[in-house]
């Protein structure tokens, strides 16, 4: 096991380099130039008043100065090397927008995104697993078919549409005012509030985003759960368990459930990156200052250091997530023994 882990960890290094290299290239080869964006201030918006711009040359010079400031005038492979070198010292560089450290920006927004995703992942699992079990143990019943239909409908509803509808109808426009239309805190939020008041205010703001973020997740997950349960239910050893007169409860929860969790463990690998990944749609529609919003704004502004940092962090978490789920697999399924295969 130890040797296996070591080997896996070492293998992650070239994988990581490959991922970041590809990510770097995709980002840099995509059209769009941050200097140009800045100089134009939006070509469509810039002034008719050409103030003392004798020649376009001076603007070009300004762009060159700007690029030099951020090292964008060097060849691409040199830039990648510099980036990698900085990474080894755990530095993601500085944002083009305000010269602040990218790491600081991520740390500032991380709690928001984690809070949001933690609750939504929890909801997804708490709803999806029992729902899947119920569907699988009552196949083709009315309840099964109703949940199947509901799951597919939810799965098909675009998140951005659902979020907009929720805001328009239940967030205090012309209809009902049940939840705030976004943000994290009330307008008059003050540090002097009692802890309890702060918590309820936060919960009130997070409720809708969490629900929306969860619904299409549990639609998918409950289907997986149902399918893998049904698969196991058809196995011979389940027949045997029933034949020897075990209680149905024990058959389902001891034999079937545990064996049908194996595919779920694989899915578990995506939780870690999912926690920080953030949802661009939900965070943008609800104006939640998390990592999804940061990523979206950074891509639009071609803020390369920030984009690369977010990309790298989620790559690392994905790699770790896969490793953990592989280890967990050997825990839930004793047949899987990694160490021996290596010898």
């Amino acid at each position, binding site marked *: 096991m130890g040797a296996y882990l070591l080997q896996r960890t070492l293998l992650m290094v070239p994988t990581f380099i490959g991922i970041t290299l590809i990510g770097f290239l995709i980002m840099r080869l995509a059209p769009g130039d941050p200097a140009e964006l800045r100089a134009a201030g939006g070509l469509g918006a810039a002034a008719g*008043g050409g103030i003392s711009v004798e020649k*376009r040359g001076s603007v070009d010079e300004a762009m060159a*100065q700007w690029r030099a400031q951020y090292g964008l005038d060097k060849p691409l492979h040199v830039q990648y090397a510099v980036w990698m070198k900085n990474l080894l010292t755990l530095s993601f560089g500085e944002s083009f927008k305000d010269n602040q450290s990218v790491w600081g920006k991520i740390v500032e927004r991380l709690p928001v995104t984690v809070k949001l995703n933690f609750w939504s992942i929890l909801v997804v699992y708490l709803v999806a697993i029992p729902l899947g079990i119920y569907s699988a143990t009552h196949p083709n019943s009315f309840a099964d078919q109703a949940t199947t239909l509901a799951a597919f409908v939810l799965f098909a509803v675009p998140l951005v549409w659902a979020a907009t509808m929720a805001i328009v109808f239940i967030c205090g426009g012309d209809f009902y005012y049940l939840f705030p*239309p976004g943000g994290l805190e009330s*307008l008059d939020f003050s540090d002097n509030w009692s802890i309890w008041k702060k918590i309820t205010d936060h919960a009130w703001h997070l409720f809708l985003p969490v629900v929306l973020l969860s619904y299409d997740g549990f639609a998918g997950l409950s289907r997986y759960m149902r399918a893998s349960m049904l698969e196991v239910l058809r196995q011979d050893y389940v027949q045997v368990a029933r034949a020897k007169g075990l209680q149905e409860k024990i058959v389902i929860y001891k034999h079937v459930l545990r064996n049908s969790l194996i595919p779920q463990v694989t899915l578990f690998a995506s939780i870690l990156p999912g926690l920080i990944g953030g949802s661009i749609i939900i965070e943008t529609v609800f104006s939640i200052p998390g990592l999804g919003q940061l990523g979206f704004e950074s891509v639009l502004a071609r803020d390369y250091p920030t984009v690369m940092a977010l990309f790298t962090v989620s790559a690392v978490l994905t790699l770790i997530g896969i490793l953990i789920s592989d280890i967990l697999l050997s825990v839930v399924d004793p047949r899987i023994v990694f160490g021996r295969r290596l010898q």
Partner: protein
Amino acid sequence: MFWRTWRFVLALLLLIGCGDKTEVKVPDAPPAAEQVSGKPVTGDWLVIHSLSDPEQLNPLTSSDASSAEVNQYIFESLLSREPRTLEFKPYIAEARPEISNDKLSYTFKIRRDVRFQDGRPVTGEDVLFSLKVIKCPLVNAPFLRVYFNSVVDAQLLDPYTIRFVTKERYFLNESVLGQEIKILPRHYYDPDNLLKNVSVRDLLKDPQLNENVKKFADNFNKNYNRNPMGSGPYKFHRWKTGQEIELTRDPNYWGTGKPGIDQAYVDRLKFRVVNNMDAALVRLKSGSLDYMEVLQPVQHVRGTNSERFNREFKKYEYYAPTYSYIGWNNNHPIFRDKRVRQAMTYLTDRKQIVKSVLFGLGEVVDSHIYFFRPEYDKTLQSYPFDPQKALALLNEAGWKDTDGDGVLDKVIDGKKVPLRFEIKVNSGNAVRKSVALVLLDELKKHGIAASVRELDWTIFLNDVKNHQFDAVVLGWQMSTTEPDAYQVWHSSQAANKGSNAISYKNARVDEILETYRREFDAQKRIQMYKEFQEIIHDEQPYTFLYVAKRVSAVHRRFQGVEVFPDGLRPIDWWVPVTRQKYLNTVTAQ
């Protein structure tokens, strides 16, 4: 960024002064002030919708509109503009500058009663320091610096008198010096006085050699982006990233009660970030926003007309000084011929576009000069929608369907070319796309095969700058103060990715643009620009489309809300004591 300060106000007065033979319909001037009762009082908050977080709040290194929006309350400059007449008015300066006979040096005298927000006086040293920061090549403000290329030196004649020397005779230099230098407190932004012994001339030479300059620039670029301090009526209070920025009224503001200085009444300005327009409107209705500067046309037409909405909010409609146009690539074999360009304008049903695409919220225009400006040429005959005339022009230019394939063609440079082209628009702009589609439908009927292509903004921008297009739908900001269209129309700006992306070239226009910039007599400049507009009107390098109206919504408890030619001015707003909403929550300073 700079355009925000440029689009100052225009004048009703000037309009009346020169309006006689009106052939092009000029829209109504902004409505006069509403009757306001009572004397303004302080108190309450104003919660303003902001579509995105500013990048940063350093007034010299930031380059986005959201930053300018916030910084205008914190920083001041030597001159300002009278909101209604757009005339210069002295602000931090005692008077407008003394300009030397050769029009190259400008001498400003600074008021002695101006204080920064920490109570220390504003002196010539601070003004000089602010200019040095702009001119310092290591400071991360290259795009602002471009505007100051002409400024080569500055000295203090005494602690309250500063003289700027420019190398170019240019009538807008007064405006650059007077309005673009946001005055920073030297003692706050350069506490160690590292720039003390460095002159503006030194900075032009080789600043790399000077350790102090390097140290200053590093510090300035990094550590002053989220903590602005100036001499304006509002102090920076806090910034919750991605959520809101809060400014508080400075109770010790130096300008309080002084004539000609903007008075602030609202105790707190909150810029609330709401990225999504639908959500923003819902927030407005639910009471967590007081002011949305921009409502989408569809939100104006539907969604904000209920009785309840109108009881709580008042909507203001006014022209936003921006025009849209279709730019024809003047180097393109098809569009080289001005008759083809004229025909395209005849084929564009601009009135219909305003009606159906903009819900009537706009005005068809035929010039790039704002119609409230004295430079605007009111004698221009608008091109009507006239397909017959367009076809006659195309025929005259040699376009006929010789091979019967349903598409007009012509032999150009020995090659048969069909009348086929592509209109590029940026994706995400539904209005521009609709404009292109309306035109497309019309063109199809007359044997012209056009298509529309949507591109991501940065890719689109790249194509436009590199002249990689047949036609584009775009917009320009118009100057509400003295315009200078050199950048857009001078032939030199067609090279090297300049703003003359359509490669317009006309020797007479070049000559006008050059002499105009050197002319200090406003009347002569107006005459020059009239001729310039006539040439453009005849040659139709653009098909000018419209100036759209903006609709803003403001909560009714605010008094003193007036539409100026340049829009609304929240600084003037106040709330009567009995209607103040956030009365109890205000903490005294």
